[in-house]
């Protein structure tokens, strides 16, 4: 381990940016400049640690004593780096996209939005680099707090309800994590992450150790949206799309998954997990979740909701991979963290772009939209293919490893492999119709609302995002209360914006393939994310993430091949 300022710098750089962003309320261009600069800086700092970590160095920074025997300390190991690198990389992409999205909708409270974003990223990287459970918990709670304003951003009743639910669920999870942390501390006398598990836990009272594991898994499981603790996630889709994208596909949910990974790999360790017999129940819950969520996703008409259920399903892939405790499954699960992030981000960005440009949120309104937004829908198709596990896209690689790992299991492997494959089929079943509709149908030839009118789906008035449900914002949308700096920077208001949802009267116009469909602030990030998922699918080693994952797995002697 090397003493280094880099871990704390990576966290502080966006923390320091918060007051700066807040103070730049009146100067949005400078404000966004700061956001981007910080995002790049953060990525650069984290990326600079990649070679070192790959060659076995770990960067450590101790902030101070937090409580007896527990330090507030950060340590960059391969697992942390995986998550930190991913989060900071995607923050850059999302920042660009946010600028396009927020300005495109002329949203209110943008300063708060960007400040919260910076705070969320600081916490997420804190989660990644935390070197013990308590530090992880601290950052985990701060992540909840800093993402709350993003979820409730709209300030509508619905947004507030979603925010309340979000807080209740995640703080409830936090309490469980705290309980588990205390138990681990009492049992083991430490909470520091140790590759292959804390030794003292293996010899501790098995009942208490199991209880602690259950608490930790349940606590992190809330953010990882394991069923039955998932229901905050679809509701939280009320947030602006970039928030849904980054936080609910990347930072927040991944922090839950990451927490489970830490618990499985670095607190308990595969051997102790097996001895305690806690791995199988976790795997079962994950398998159940990934199947059920896929089925529910079929019934959603609102695009973001469908994506949300897809997220729930995909996250359980990762948890399943961790819980199987097999080398290949582990590789697959961990690789699915970045793979899913890139793909899901692409999908959310696409949904957001559609919303900004055409105010369409429901899948049933999207027939023929490929003509209007060809590049966007192409990216969507690529990412959707990846989700389903079709080769050349990131999802294929991770799922491949997962299935191999499941098949290697001494017993029950077939069940899990089958669950993975069935879910893959379901993925195709819920993504293909969107792509098909977009390109091969036209609004006229398309039946109204072909999908099942589910308990969540099908409500055309569901305004899952944006500030347009509020009168004043609707007004500012129409430029009655123009905020000059917004207009002159963006200079683009779509003529369709008065129309709410669905194709305009004369059908979608043809915008061609050269980016006429939206601003490059949005298209750029979409294409970048799609490209990243392709890269990860074709040259996974060059894209570094698989190498990090390999390093993680090779550090775990307890994992059975």
């Amino acid at each position: 381990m090397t003493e280094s300022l880099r871990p704390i710098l990576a966290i502080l750089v966006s923390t320091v940016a918060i007051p700066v962003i807040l103070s730049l309320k009146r100067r949005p261009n400078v404000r966004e400049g700061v956001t981007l600069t910080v995002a790049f800086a953060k990525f650069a700092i984290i990326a600079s640690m990649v070679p070192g970590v790959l060659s076995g160095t770990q960067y450590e920074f101790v902030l101070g004593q937090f409580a007896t025997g527990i330090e507030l300390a950060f340590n960059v190991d391969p697992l942390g780096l995986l998550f930190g690198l991913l989060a900071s990389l995607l923050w850059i992409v999302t920042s660009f996209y946010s600028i396009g999205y927020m300005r495109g909708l002329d949203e209110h409270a943008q300063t708060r939005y960007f400040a919260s974003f910076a705070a969320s990223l600081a916490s997420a990287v804190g989660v990644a680099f935390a070197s013990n459970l308590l530090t992880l918990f601290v950052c985990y709670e701060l992540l909840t707090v800093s993402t709350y304003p993003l979820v409730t951003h709209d300030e509508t009743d619905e947004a507030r309800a979603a925010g309340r639910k979000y807080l209740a669920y995640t703080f409830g999870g936090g309490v469980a994590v705290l309980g588990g942390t205390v138990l681990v501390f009492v049992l083991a006398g430490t909470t520091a992450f140790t590759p292959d598990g804390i030794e003292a836990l293996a010899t501790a009272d098995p009942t208490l150790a199991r209880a602690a594991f259950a608490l930790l898994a349940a606590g992190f499981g809330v953010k990882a949206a394991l069923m039955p603790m998932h229901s905050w996630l679809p509701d939280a889709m009320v947030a602006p799309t970039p928030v849904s994208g980054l936080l609910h596909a990347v930072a927040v949910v991944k922090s839950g998954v990451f927490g489970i990974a830490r618990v499985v790999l670095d607190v308990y360790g595969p051997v102790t997990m097996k001895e305690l017999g806690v791995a199988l129940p976790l795997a079962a819950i994950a398998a159940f979740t990934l199947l059920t969520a896929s089925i529910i996703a079929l019934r959603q008409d609102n695009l973001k909701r469908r994506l949300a259920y897809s997220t729930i399903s995909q996250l359980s892939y990762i948890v399943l991979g961790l819980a199987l405790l097999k080398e290949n499954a582990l590789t697959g699960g961990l690789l699915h963290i970045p793979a899913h992030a890139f793909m899901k981000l692409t999908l959310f960005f696409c949904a957001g772009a559609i919303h900004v440009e055409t105010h369409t949120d429901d899948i049933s309104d999207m027939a023929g939209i490929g003509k209007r937004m060809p590049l966007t829908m192409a990216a969507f198709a690529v990412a959707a293919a990846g989700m389903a596990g079709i080769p050349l896209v990131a999802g294929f690689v991770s799922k491949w490893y997962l299935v191999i790992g499941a098949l290697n299991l001494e017993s029950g492997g077939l069940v899990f492999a089958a669950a993975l494959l069935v879910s893959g089929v379901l993925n195709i079943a819920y993504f293909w119709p969107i792509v098909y509709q977009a390109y091969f149908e036209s609004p006229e030839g398309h039946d109204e609302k072909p999908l099942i009118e589910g308990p969540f789906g099908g409500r055309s008035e569901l305004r899952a995002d944006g500030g347009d449900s509020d009168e004043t914002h609707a007004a500012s949308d129409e430029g009655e209360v123009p905020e000059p700096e917004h207009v002159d920077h963006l200079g683009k208001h779509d003529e369709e914006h008065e129309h709410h949802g669905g194709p305009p009267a004369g059908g979608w116009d043809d915008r061609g393939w050269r980016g006429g469909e939206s601003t490059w602030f949005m298209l750029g990030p979409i294409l970048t994310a799609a490209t990243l998922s392709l890269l990860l699918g074709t040259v996974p080693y060059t894209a570094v993430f698989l190498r990090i994952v390999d390093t993680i797995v090779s550090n775990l002697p307890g994992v059975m091949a």
Partner: protein
Amino acid sequence: MIEQIPVLLVVLPIVGGAIPLVASLVSDRAGWPVATLTLVGQTGLAGLLAWTVSTSGTVSYAVGGFAAPYGIELVVDGLSGAVALLVAVISLGVLAYARKAGPHSGPFYGLYLLLVAGLTGMTVTGDVFNLYVFLEITGLAAYGLVASGRDASAAVAALKYLIIGTVGASLYLLGVGYLLAATGTLNMADLATKIGEMAAYDSTLVLTAFGLMVGGLTVKVALFPLHTWQPDAYANAPDTVSAFISALVSTVSAYALARLLFSVFTVEFLTAVPVARWALVGLACVSIVAGSALAVSQDSVQRMLAYSSVSQFGLVVAGFAIATPLAVVGATVHLLGHAVMKGGLFAATGVIERKTGATTVNGYAGMGSRVPVSAFAFAVLSLAMVGVPPAVGFVGKWYIVLGAVNAENWAVVAVLLASTLLTLAYFARLVERLYFAEATIHSKPDEAPVTDGSGQAVSFGMIAVVVIAAALAVALTAAVPELQAMLEDTLPPLLNQ
């Protein structure tokens, strides 16, 4: 000179408190400078004392030079040193708030200093009857301060406080009588050895004394169901007083309860009479849940904060009653942290009311943009109270939970953990309203706001107090290891480790 500090800490505010009454004959505005001067001195002395205690251990002082069981002994160990410093610092801080917020009368500042004297006396004394005397000074001063508001309701609240508070103090006194009957002594250390020697731990006299003294103090701490005086008193007192007494009066009473548990009855008693411990722990747990439930159902923000105190002191008392070293450290951290947080929250409500006229949960809607600094401080303090790390509210809870787990007391662990969510239940709706709801009060900031009738605006000092409290609520976490070191010398003898 340093060995004289314990008594000086009590005498200094008494002297200061005697002056404003005469000074007000000369000038109407003499009260504030006198109080400030006194409390600056007080803070210096308390700081010096805390430093002395942490470097060279417990300081004990024989008033009048009469040795311990015959004369009155003052004892300052890590626990009381920390509380004495807290009293000095917070009373000085609230004074900065009072300068603008008032009340401005001479007697008010006299009483203010007498309250400081009473609180400090309760903190440093090592004699159970002397504790009663200071308890009553504290009470009298607090009743008077609550009634110093212009509103007639302040007088009603003060009378209710007086009557219930007097019953509490009287029960405590009766408990002292039972202890006296059992042992013939009043000195805490002497009692600790004589209880058990002269009277068995489970003898009727000792048990009755425990019940009465603890019962009396829980009235003062305002644990459920003996809390009924407290919401009225906090909500109807002037803002300065609310901030002051919500931060300190219950806090010092809870300290006195701890002192009684550890220095008089001792942990051996709690072990020998498990029912006493479980009764106290049970009371604390009920208080945590009931206080939160009542807080959720309040419309007035100040009343909500008052009920929140009922709940939070449940946490503190639970920590003390569990009585493992970690739990006691946690209870102490939470005791000190709660004082800062609750004082800051009440101060913030005062600022928000003066600026916008908002006093209710609904009235707070949309005030986040109207009073950005105070609202932000309020939000930070709320989150700290909920126990979001790394704020000090979390650290205290962490240790208490750790202690409860060590004691393998799972039901209590569950309640303690749930208290986070319970606290969240009432603070989250307020913070949500502050930032994510349409304003319901639409007066312009420059218009005269609806205040408590004093019609006064807000000074820089008032906002500074609120902001500093919010900063402290987070920064105090860094001081926890220091506090723990201070308690490390103190606790083992107290807890028979």
